[in-house]
């Protein structure tokens, strides 16, 4: 049958063309639905299909899946295809499985079993299909299932070369996807390494990739590969291209293998064995030699392949960094490329040269090409190549050529591309500082830089200029002079104004004797720019003015006028306003000596790593050839007295802010810091602010108050505040963090004594999950009293303090008296009610000794704050206390009457409470009995 139909699968072709001809999405969907039903019918369990049909339908399913529809059947048929003996059927089966991998484990086991069968079969084509499928799926399961089989294929003697090749690549893929589940037996290491010597170049190429990956994981285990790699490399390099028929690519012998071998060698330091080392050097030498030979073909592929090997060889030379002859030769070779017509080649040459410049052996060699590189910078059309040229110039710069290079870069900066300007500015700033012999030159360059590149000058650059000036006494007057000159230009960039402003403020006096720059002229010049500046610059200039008062007392009046001016004194910008106000006051009330101390010249900055380098590294962490790496080797005069200064430029701004904090803002400041967390104590009355009170002792605290601290330990402080509205309490909890770290995972809950029959209805808002150090959070909510209760609810608070879970449980001192409302009545009324409440459980009488001095007023206050009224003049004895209250619960309102009779002679009290509901009187009496 298949012979008649052939392998063409006409049905599939028709189906695909039908789908292509569909006019709309709906039509496509209809066609697919129809086909799916058809396939389902065919795939029914009771029908038998021959392999060809199965293949055809699986193909259709695959096509439908690739169109973006879900396929939920047909896996079984696809897996069945795997066990077919025909290549096409097997292939389709594998294709389906590698595209639609079903996640069900049962199916996976079946698939793995089939793959295993194929891998163990004798047919190399089937083995290869299976390996391809494993690599395509590349899952953890696959890696664990075949962790032994595939390496065995790779090292066994009787597998044929194409299979070995596939096995190596399959292993590489598994190694990349799930390196931990692939465990290679160490016994195989040697044999895997020996694959480098394989007769078949394809196997060797595949093996190098695998070994390279394995070496990255475990360099020591595969150390042996270096020898083999070098010998293999030398064999390829020294042989003629005619020796490798299949593996010669446009007259270059096995370029891929060469490149991979050279990469592999870059994983290791230069070989110790002198023979191997000399052999490797020979190889590299030969590669460099070959580059000199005339091209064997005009085709671009030939030169590409040759250059690929060459660049990889140069990379290896740079990596080894020990053979000066090779380094210099490489450098010369790259120099030739600099003038090549190919842009890519020039780019690569510049990039490699950057690395070469960092090596002590080739640094000088690189310097020879300075002229060419500068030309490249000027004439190159591609901006990325120009960028590389800038990098190279930066890398090759040293004391001898610094002036030239900086000058060139500065001239180029004016026309440079916007994308690289900021980086160039940084580089110029760094180079000119690093190699400056004369700091006047440095200052000239920097001011010119700021003038040319204004917007691209980052903050760090001009901070740095100021640091240098402040730290070097010898250039200060020169700095003041040129800064003054720079300011005279009609259009000044803001950065320039900042630098000039600062410098004049500090060292303006050094040039004041010159009639061209008297104090008044300096001041007026600076002030002419004042209104063109942004607020930050203005505040800086205000500080300069202040410094002028100290330097030149004769212009004090002018400065004060300006400070007093509305645009400053009442500026909408807070910073300017504050400075103007404070400076004005400072100048008015302070004596000249005080002023002189306050406005003293800035002290030198501490020396640290230049912020510019930090900034440059931030900007492009990878592209830089580390210039600081060469500092020990370059003859450095800048090591000691060079202005390697403060990490962050502290300028006037900061100093100013410090002043404020210590002085004028103190009051505000303290309020703020108190406000953070001490607030919780601020509402507690002094009597109770014994902070370390244990929770149980403090339990009755809330009896007479509406706010208190209910819990406190070293970590947390919990406060409460209640507000009474009949039967509902509005509650606010305050959680204060007393530590210096965050409290996280906060949770709090209130549990009742009897959950099934609750006497309180609690409704709290969710608490924030974390509290910042020394901060406080609030949780509000309501508590409703359903009926009178005796047991206090429990509060549970849990949180993490420095990742240690903490749990706090304590009774919430929410006594029933909180729900009592005062009731006023006259004596008739009072006694009428008193008499009505005469059932035995309605009354409770307690006689107890006085704990506190028997003060009438205090007692009265306590009773009042307990919640009920203190009715004076009802009882005949003025010493006695009488009162009434209504206890509000949701269920009912309970009237409460009390009578407290002190006996001063016996130091005893008699408390009688009558309530309309039985039992409540006893509870209230219990609360009060030890409180007087």
């Amino acid at each position, binding site marked *: 049958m298949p012979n008649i139909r052939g392998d063409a699968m006409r049905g599939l072709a028709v189906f695909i063309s039908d789908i292509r001809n569909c006019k709309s999405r709906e039509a496509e969907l209809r066609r697919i*639905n129809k086909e*799916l039903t058809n396939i389902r019918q065919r795939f029914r369990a009771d029908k038998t299909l021959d392999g060809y049909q199965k293949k055809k339908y699986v193909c259709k399913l695959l096509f439908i899946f690739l169109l973006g529809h879900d396929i939920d059947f047909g896996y079984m048929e696809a897996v069945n295809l795997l066990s077919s003996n025909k290549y096409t059927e097997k292939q389709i089966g594998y294709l389906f499985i590698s595209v639609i991998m079903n996640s069900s484990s049962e199916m996976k086991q079946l698939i793995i079993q089939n793959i295993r069968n194929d891998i163990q079969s004798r047919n190399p084509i089937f083995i290869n299909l299976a390996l391809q499928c494993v690599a395509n799926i590349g899952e953890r399961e696959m890696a664990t299932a075949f962790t032994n089989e595939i390496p065995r294929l790779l090292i066994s003697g009787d597998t044929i070369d194409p299979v070995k090749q596939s096995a190596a690549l399959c292993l590489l893929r598994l190694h990349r996807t799930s390196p931990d589940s692939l465990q290679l037996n160490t016994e195989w290491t040697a044999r895997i390494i020996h694959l480098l010597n394989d007769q078949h170049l394809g196997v060797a190429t595949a093996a190098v990739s695998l070994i390279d990956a394995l070496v990255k994981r475990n360099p020591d285990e595969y150390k042996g590969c270096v020898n083999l790699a070098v010998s293999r490399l030398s064999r390829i390099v020294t042989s003629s291209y005619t020796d490798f028929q299949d593996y010669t690519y446009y007259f270059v012998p096995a370029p891929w293998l060469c490149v991979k071998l050279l990469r592999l060698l870059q994983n290791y330091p230069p070989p110790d064995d002198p023979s191997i080392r000399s052999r490797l050097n020979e190889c590299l030498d030969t590669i460099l030699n070959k580059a000199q030979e005339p091209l064997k073909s005009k085709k671009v592929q030939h030169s590409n392949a040759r250059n690929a090997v060459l660049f990889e060889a140069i990379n290896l030379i740079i990596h080894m960094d020990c053979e000066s002859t090779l380094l210099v030769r490489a450098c010369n070779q790259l120099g030739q490329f600099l003038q090549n017509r190919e842009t890519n080649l020039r780019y690569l040459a510049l990039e490699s040269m950057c690395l070469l410049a960092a090596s002590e052996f080739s640094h000088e060699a690189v310097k020879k090409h300075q002229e060419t590189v500068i030309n490249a910078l000027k004439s190159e059309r591609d901006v990325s190549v120009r960028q590389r040229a800038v990098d190279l110039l930066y890398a090759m710069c040293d004391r001898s050529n610094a002036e030239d290079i900086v000058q060139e870069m500065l001239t180029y900066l004016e026309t440079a591309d916007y994308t690289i300007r900021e980086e160039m500015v940084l580089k110029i700033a760094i180079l000119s500082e690093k190699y400056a012999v004369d700091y006047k030159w440095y200052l000239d360059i920097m001011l010119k830089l700021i003038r040319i590149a204004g917007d691209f000058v980052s903050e760090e650059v001009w901070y740095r200029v100021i640091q240098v000036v402040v730290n070097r006494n010898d250039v200060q007057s020169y700095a003041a002079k040129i800064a003054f000159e720079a300011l005279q230009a009609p259009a000044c960039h803001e950065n320039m104004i900042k630098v000039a402003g600062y410098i004049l403020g500090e060292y303006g006096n050094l040039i004041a004797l010159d009639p061209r720059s008297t104090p008044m002229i300096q001041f007026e010049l600076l002030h002419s720019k004042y209104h063109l500046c942004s607020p930050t610059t203005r505040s800086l200039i205000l500080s300069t003015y202040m410094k002028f008062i100290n330097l030149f007392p004769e212009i004090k009046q002018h400065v004060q006028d300006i400070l007093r001016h509305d645009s400053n004194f009442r500026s909408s910008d807070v910073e300017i306003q504050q400075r103007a106000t404070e400076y004005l006051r400072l100048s008015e009330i302070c004596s000249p000596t005080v002023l002189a101390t306050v406005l003293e010249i800035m002290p030198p900055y501490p020396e640290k790593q230049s912020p510019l380098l930090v900034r440059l590294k931030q900007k492009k962490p990878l592209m830089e050839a580390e210039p600081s790496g060469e500092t020990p080797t370059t003859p450095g005069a800048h090591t000691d007295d060079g202005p390697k200064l403060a990490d962050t430029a502290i300028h006037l701004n900061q100093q100013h802010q410090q002043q404020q904090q210590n002085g004028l803002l103190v009051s505000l400041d303290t309020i703020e810091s108190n406000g953070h967390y001490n607030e919780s104590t601020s509402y507690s009355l002094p009597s109770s602010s014994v902070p370390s009170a244990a929770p149980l002792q403090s339990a009755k605290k809330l009896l007479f108050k509406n706010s208190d601290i209910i819990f406190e330990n070293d970590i947390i402080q919990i406060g409460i505040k209640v507000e009474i509205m009949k039967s509902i309490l509005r509650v606010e909890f305050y959680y204060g963090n007393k530590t210096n770290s965050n409290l996280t995972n906060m949770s709090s809950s209130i549990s009742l004594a009897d959950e099934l029959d609750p006497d309180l209805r609690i409704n709290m808002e969710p608490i924030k999950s974390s509290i910042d150090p020394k901060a406080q959070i609030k949780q509000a909510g309501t508590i409703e009293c359903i009926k009178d209760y005796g047991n206090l609810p429990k509060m549970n608070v849990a949180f993490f303090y420095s990742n240690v879970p903490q749990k706090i449980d304590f009774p919430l001192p929410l006594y029933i008296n909180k729900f009592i409302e005062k009731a006023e009545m006259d004596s008739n009324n009072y006694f009428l009610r008193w008499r009505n409440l005469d059932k035995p459980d309605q009354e409770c009488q307690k006689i107890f000794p006085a704990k506190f001095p028997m003060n009438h007023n205090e007692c009265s206050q306590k009773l009042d704050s307990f919640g009920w009224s203190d009715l004076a003049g009802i009882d005949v004895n003025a010493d006695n206390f009488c009162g009434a209250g209504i206890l509000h619960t949701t269920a009912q309102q309970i009237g409460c009457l009390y009578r407290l009779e002190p006996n001063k002679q016996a130091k005893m009290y008699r408390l009688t409470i009558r309530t309309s509901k039985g039992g409540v009187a006893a509870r209230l009496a219990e609360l009060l009995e030890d409180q007087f």
Partner: protein
Amino acid sequence: MIGGVFIYNHKGEVLISRVYRDDIGRNAVDAFRVNVIHARQQSRFPVVNIARTSFFYTKRSNIWLCAVAKQNINAAMVFEFLNKMIDIMQSYFGKISEENVKNNFVLIYELLDEILDFGYPQNSDAGVLKSFITQQGVRPVTREEQTNVTSAVTGQIGWRREGIKYRRNELFLDVIESVNLLMSQQGQVLSTHVAGRVAMKSYLSGMPECKFGINDKITVENRTKNPGDSTNPTNNSTANNSTNPTTTTTAATTKTAIAIDDCQFHQCVKLSKFESEHSISFIPPDGEFELMRYRTTKDISLPFRVIPLVREIGRTKMEVKVVVKSNFKPTLIGQKIEIRIPIPPNTCDVQLLCMKGKAKHKSSDNAIVWKMKRMGGMKESQLSAEIELTPNDKKKWNRPPISMSFEVPFAPSGFKVRYLKVFEHKLNYSDSETIKWVRYIGKSGLYETRS
């Protein structure tokens, strides 16, 4: 206000693009194509908001019609306009298809210029438009014709020109209703309503005034209260129809009166008269027009009842039995009956058995389609199907409802034409001389039963 109107073919290529307002940019056309026509997930919303621009669209066969607006605009108005535009195009060149749109694009732009002005809809009556937007070449227009057009567009009776003459005065009236139903498995009516319309075709001379009476509850009740003021309906007012209402006693009319939830009229109907006297009187436009639309929700006689019975036997088998009962007078005959029974997507084979008509498994739609050409009233028919499934444990099938379509020769809402009279004062033909044809058609809208 409508910012622009676009017409696309099924591929999303722009056939017509007319922008009325500056706030609609050039990229709006593409935004709609990318986000709606070519969207991965088919959009289910008639209004789509993309970048603060609203797109209102409908699809006719393979053509997308889309109106764009930047402002917060009355969406119902836009859709009304789009539907009207489709009607106009249909009356000009028949079916809306890509080819027709391409062949008539000059005409469509001309129409778009006329019916929308700076985004505000204008006169969209096909009859009036046809009087001055023609498909013939330019021809000299007489002064008389010019004034006619002007008065037609600007005058009081914009929809009818003067001096129409017919040898035979004829009047056709169709009551077309579509019944919408959602019924639960147990036969409980979950929701139902009838959307009806009265379409007319008039071939009358002169400027006739017509009066139209229906068995609306309010009108009927008005009439019973003061029977003197209304004209007595006569037999010949609704001639030529078997189901026309006969003049009966007032008691009988109240019984058959229906409650109309809401209705709307063609612009020719004098609304003031409708409001005060609740009578529908109008001067009809010449030719075809839609006199009124209405909606009822109460006392609807459902023409068919579908009783499904689904039984799942194991994971691989399913039995479906569907019984259809016709529920109207045995003298009437329902036509074009089609019942669509959705089946699970993992169906692999279906065995069908039906007593009447033809049933087919349409695998492309995952449904069984059962068709019957006709079915008499008070009859019953049954279909049973055995469905074989491939086991699928992924998701449960959520059984979409069984839908049905049909056509019956009566109005399921009970809507009846009581009379239709024509008065023409200048020309001397009387009401009895005009020939009137009344027809009732009940169609299915969304007629679904849950299974």
